[in-house]
């Protein structure tokens, strides 16, 4: 029933995180992972700048993980989120959920991502390849709509 939550500037190693949830754990039957990457947006983007609210970000991720555990009998949950300047192709976020069976591992993993998107205090700003400072990324209606599934 381990939970790992880390907010960090540096990249992470998805395989090492997955192994930590499954090695020597023959009760684990299913592992679902999600990795979010910085897209280049058809070549227009040179980087994303990720700002966060230290302290609250960790608390909010813990709250989301706690809610997922109330809903599904999963085993390990790992949530990693980077901040700072992130280049196209680089990892931004990682969620891994292990469990006995796939249904609950999939559901908890997607639930965590959906709530992370809309309630964890992170904000993205674009940097353009033409050197101009881009806009703060706007929140998407699609992300709010994704929450309806979990009501």
């Amino acid at each position, binding site marked *: 029933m381990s939970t790992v939550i880390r907010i960090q500037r540096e990249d992470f190693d998805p395989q090492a995180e997955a192994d930590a949830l499954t090695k020597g754990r023959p009760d684990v039957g299913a592992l679902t992972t999600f990795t979010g990457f910085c897209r280049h947006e058809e070549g227009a983007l040179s980087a994303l700048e990720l700002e966060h*609210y230290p302290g609250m970000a960790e608390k*909010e991720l813990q709250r989301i993980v706690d809610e997922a555990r109330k809903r599904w009998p999963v085993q390990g949950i790992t949530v990693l*989120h980077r901040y700072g300047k992130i280049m196209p192709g680089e990892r*931004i976020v990682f969620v891994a959920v292990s469990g006995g069976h796939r249904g609950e591992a999939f559901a908890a993993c997607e639930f965590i991502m959906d709530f992370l*998107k*809309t309630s964890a*205090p*992170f*904000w993205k700003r674009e940097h353009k390849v033409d050197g101009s400072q881009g806009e703060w990324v706007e*929140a998407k209606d699609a992300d709010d709509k994704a929450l309806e599934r979990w009501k």
Partner: protein
Amino acid sequence: MKAVYFAWVRERVGKPEEILTPPASVITVADLIAWLKGQGEEYAYAFENGHVIRVAIDQTHVKHDALIADAREIAFFPPMTGG
């Protein structure tokens, strides 16, 4: 009460944090936002669409009708865009 600002709210206000001492008539988050809008052009700009601003008291999300009575830290920021 300590106020902290993030993303474009921080940029518009022009500082990441400050100590606020609102008058006693400021009871709710909405009251505080209305009062802040009168504290100068930068606040008027930051909070011009006050209803889109998200607020956390002591690092927990709250609605605009929440009471600010015991708040030690109140945060103002745009809708989240992480992940």
